């Protein structure tokens, strides 16, 4: 184990990780900052995949107040309102900073000001974007800024575990694994910022990058953090169904349905008429995704196993002009979006749950900050399109600022060597074990279990069955065997991925079983109604104890306020 | 310079064949001072361009700054020597066809050495082409990738380089043989007559094609660069046009080398 000492260790290089590193550096350039990323810096991370854009109330006719209402109503009041308020009130400032100091260039209105487009569930057009490649522009420019600063970058270096100090109450570093060399690094830091992204890869069909395997949740859980609302997994209704290709699950943008595209089942029926006759295909993400899923599960899917998105009646010219990126992506796998229906499937998209944080990204463990998708509570039971990258950037910046303050307060402390040694040993176990389980097979089974039983519609027997299956898969993973050489060993990495996936999957299934109501993205066949009297609570989980609930603090807005509109209590 | 080159090429290969450019031909031509200036200028420009080319190739092929500087210095020195020789030949020759045998005419081995050099250049050219073609064919036959040769731009660039190098090599020999003219017209005639040797004909044809290609490619690149985005989009199609032009324009000259006369 190679030792490494720094002041701030940032795990993850998406929007949250990069914003944290840049903000911390700019606040105090003397600090030694290290960014470790599972993939290449700036390439790994879901901020890059953002198509739609970034919600911020910039227009004088819009306000943080309205943005807040939309966010909390969209989240069905399960949001942590302090976090949601931080999001909406700081988003405009972050947009300005991205443009004026980072060099991001967003699309313009004819008069030259930043253009904002309409997105689902919003009372005002407030989504800042750059074409349908918003994420690439934001992350590429943040990446460029790293080159202007003395920030050490550890690429293709995953974190294996967070490491405590000797007494154990504080996180003082992490055990890292360098993919290319297979060598471990024991990084010691005053403050660790966890921003590794979510874990929708536990499902057969999912939208994010392939390396999003819930590592952050798993590490935080093992380290002793509280995780909340893990049952809240958003499914996007229109993931591309691309045969056996891993491209399957990649999102086809919501704007297509907004523009009037139809959803058809295997019999050619516009099935949304049965689920939401008023709004049809323009219903919210959770409703449309669930309807598609039920059609497929009840045998009315297409031969390919999905439903169809049909934009042909909108006119080929219109489709090609307004959705060139989507048309290109479809054409790549032989579909003609402008002229023929395209097979689509609901796809696991975003985990609203995550580590419990305060508005400064602090956790119950001193020295550990969490930002981005790893954190829970901002979006409640359902995330609005355009709030994801906003969350990453706002809370990334907050974590960076908080880390600088903490560095002044926290003395350097040595990581617990025996803990690091144990983590190191556990990670190396499968190397060179002959005749062991194939980790890729374990992943495949897990994905199908989660898809069938912890997917868009859940019930008690299914969730219990899923937990049994997860137990069995954990046993199988214990026996995994991979080639001996640790250098650039993808099979070994897969074992570590599966370890995280199984932990995140269990957290998701346990919380889903616990919440006996339906709310937002969480739908229970056996408890189909929303129940504010009993379930306006966060489901908490922590290692070594049973799940428990804590009430949602309705500090600014209550469900009643929405029925009778009044000002938000800022 | 391109204009001078093309005029020169036309006169020597379309209006005549090289083996016919005897001392009588040269005398008739250099009777007009304008042609002397023309030839001197052409030589100056061609050698200068050659130095630039050598400089570019040295930068690509050699790593050390000292080696590069040494190559640049050698190229410049060689250029000065050859330029001096050439200019001397062009302007020292008496207006009328020299009657005397010339100062160098006692050195009867000179034509042999020059022709030998030409044969060596030709042999090297043939071998390089054959080896490249064989290598490519071998890899294609085995289904192995052929490096960057799948890109049109790669061919355009490589052919330009190869053509430039070939032209430069010939130019140096050519300066030597023309330099014989004022000092040993008889030896000059013997040298020039050897151009009809069948072994050299493919190289001469290649040389004509190389000059055409190199000149037209230069024009093509300047045009494309001037056209900005439209230009970069035209890179591949314009390369195909360039190849067709080069081949079709070379054909009459090749026919003449083979004995055909209009």
């Amino acid at each position, binding site marked *: 184990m190679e030792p490494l000492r720094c002041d701030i260790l940032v795990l993850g290089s998406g929007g949250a990780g990069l914003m944290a590193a840049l903000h911390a550096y700019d606040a105090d350039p003397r600090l030694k900052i290290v960014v470790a990323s599972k993939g*290449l810096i700036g390439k790994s991370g879901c901020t890059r995949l953002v198509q739609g854009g970034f919600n911020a109330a910039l227009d004088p006719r819009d306000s943080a107040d309205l943005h807040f209402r939309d966010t909390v109503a969209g989240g069905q009041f399960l949001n942590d309102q302090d976090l949601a308020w931080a999001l909406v009130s700081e988003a405009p400032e972050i947009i300005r900073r991205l443009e004026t100091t980072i060099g991001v*260039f967003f699309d313009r209105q004819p008069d030259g000001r930043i253009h904002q487009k309409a997105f689902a569930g919003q009372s005002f057009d407030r989504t800042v974007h750059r074409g349908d490649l918003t994420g690439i522009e934001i992350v590429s420019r943040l990446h*460029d800024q790293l080159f202007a600063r003395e920030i050490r970058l550890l690429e293709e270096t995953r974190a294996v575990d967070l490491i405590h100090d000797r007494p154990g109450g504080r996180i003082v570093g992490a055990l890292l694994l360098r993919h290319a060399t297979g060598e471990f690094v024991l990084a010691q830091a005053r403050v660790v910022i966890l921003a590794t992204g979510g874990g929708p890869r536990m499902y057969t069909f999912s939208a994010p990058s392939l390396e999003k395997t819930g590592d952050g949740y798993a590490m935080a859980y093992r380290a002793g953090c509280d995780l909340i609302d893990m049952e809240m997994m958003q499914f996007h209704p229109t993931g591309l169904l691309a045969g056996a290709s891993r491209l399957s699950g990649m999102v086809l943008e919501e704007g297509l349905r907004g523009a009037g595209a139809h959803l058809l089942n295997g019999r050619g029926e516009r099935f949304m008429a049965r689920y939401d006759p008023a709004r049809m295909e323009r219903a919210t993400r959770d409703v449309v995704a669930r309807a598609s899923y039920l059609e497929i599960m009840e045998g009315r899917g297409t031969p390919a196993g999905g439903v169809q998105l049909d934009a042909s009646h909108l006119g080929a010219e219109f489709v090609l002009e307004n959705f060139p990126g989507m048309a290109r992506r479809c054409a790549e796998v032989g579909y003609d979006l402008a002229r023929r229906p395209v097979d689509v499937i609901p796809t696991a998209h975003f985990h609203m749950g995550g580590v419990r944080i305060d508005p400064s990204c602090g956790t119950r463990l001193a020295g550990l900050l969490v930002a981005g998708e790893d954190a829970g509570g901002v979006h409640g039971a359902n995330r609005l399109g355009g709030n994801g990258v906003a969350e990453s950037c706002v809370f990334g910046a907050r974590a960076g600022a908080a880390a600088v303050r903490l560095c002044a307060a926290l003395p350097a402390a040595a990581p617990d060597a025996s803990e690091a040694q144990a983590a190191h040993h556990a990670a190396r176990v499968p190397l060179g074990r002959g005749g062991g389980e194939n980790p*890729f097979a374990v992943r495949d089974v897990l994905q199908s279990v989660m898809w069938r039983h912890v997917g868009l519609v859940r019930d008690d027997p299914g969730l219990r069955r899923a937990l049994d299956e997860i137990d069995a898969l954990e046993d199988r993973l214990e026996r995994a065997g991979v080639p001996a050489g640790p250098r650039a060993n993808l099979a070994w990495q897969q074992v570590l991925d599966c370890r995280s996936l199984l932990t995140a999957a269990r957290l998701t299934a346990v919380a889903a079983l616990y919440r006996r109501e339906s709310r937002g993205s969480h739908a229970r066949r056996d408890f189909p109604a929303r129940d504010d009297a009993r379930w306006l609570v966060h489901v908490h989980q922590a290692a070594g104890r049973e799940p428990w609930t804590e009430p949602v603090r309705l500090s600014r807005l209550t469900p009643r306020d929405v029925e009778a509109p009044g000002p938000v209590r800022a | 310079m391109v204009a001078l080159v093309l005029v020169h090429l036309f006169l020597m290969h379309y209006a005549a064949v090289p083996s016919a450019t005897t001392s009588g031909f040269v005398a008739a031509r250099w009777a007009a001072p304008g042609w002397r200036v023309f030839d001197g200028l052409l030589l100056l420009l061609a050698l200068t361009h050659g130095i630039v080319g050598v400089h570019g190739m040295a930068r690509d092929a050699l790593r050390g700054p000292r080696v590069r500087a040494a190559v640049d210095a050698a190229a410049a020195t060689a250029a000065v020597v050859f330029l001096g020789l050439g200019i001397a030949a062009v302007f020292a020759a008496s207006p009328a066809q020299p009657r005397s045998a010339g100062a160098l005419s006692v050195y009867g081995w000179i034509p042999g050495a020059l022709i030998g050099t030409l044969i060596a250049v030709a042999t090297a050219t043939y071998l390089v082409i054959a080896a490249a073609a064989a290598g490519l064919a071998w890899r294609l036959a085995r289904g192995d990738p052929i490096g*960057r040769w799948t890109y049109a731009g790669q061919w355009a660039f490589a052919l330009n380089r190869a053509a430039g190098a070939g032209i430069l090599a010939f130019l140096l020999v050519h300066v030597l043989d023309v330099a014989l003219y004022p000092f040993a017209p008889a030896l000059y005639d013997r040298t020039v007559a050897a151009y009809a040797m069948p072994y050299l004909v493919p190289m001469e044809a290649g040389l004509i094609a190389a000059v055409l290609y190199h000149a037209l490619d230069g024009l093509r690149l300047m045009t494309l*660069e001037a056209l900005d985005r439209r230009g*970069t989009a035209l890179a591949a199609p314009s390369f195909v046009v360039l190849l067709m032009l080069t081949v079709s324009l070379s054909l009459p000259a090749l026919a003449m080398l083979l004995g055909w006369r209009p």
Partner: protein
Amino acid sequence: MIVRVRRFDPAADRGGRWQAYEVEPRPMMSVLDALFWILEHDDPTLAFRYSCRAGMCGSCAMVVNGREALACALRLADVRAPVSVEPLRSLPVVKDLLVDLGPFFDKYRAVDPFYVGDAASLAGPALEPAAVPRGDPSREVVDRQIDCISCGACYSACPVVAVTPEFLGPAALNRAYAVAADTRDRAGAARLRRVTRDGGVHACHSVGNCVTVCPVGVNPLLSIQLLRKGAVHR
């Protein structure tokens, strides 16, 4: 379907070798999917790089049948058999198809690729973003050139990079143009000095392979030509 992969482990092998795998063709399989198929069913020692699998991150650039491509965006059915897959060129191989992009990013870094804002925006609270009208001529070329995903395909395809180690390469020079031509940038004339030195825009031979291979339609040659012609004023 046979897929031949260039295998090389610098720590164990003296040179690379071709290894042929029989891949079960599946509907809409990409070259990346084929590599995963090999990894998961046949040979767990194979190494390659991936991330988004949707043509957005630029992690899986490699050489397929002699041409640079993103493995995730190239359908196996569109590649002529026999399919051969090699790592990017002009970069050190870590293992098999996994290359060290270090030299590529070192050169990217060397052009100071980062935007420099107004001193005021850096010091105090951020200024309002500049008003730049849609269709502003200053953005006409820049807007298309900022979409680079730094995959390294152009760097690998460039023959000048292959023979001239100090040549900065298409991606870095493209970025240099994009940020130098950004009217909001305040870095001054230093940007142009950096790219007109040795290894800069004058080392380019206008081969144009970079334009052919760019998976996102960026035109690095155009950026280089504009810098060379002095089209950017500082």
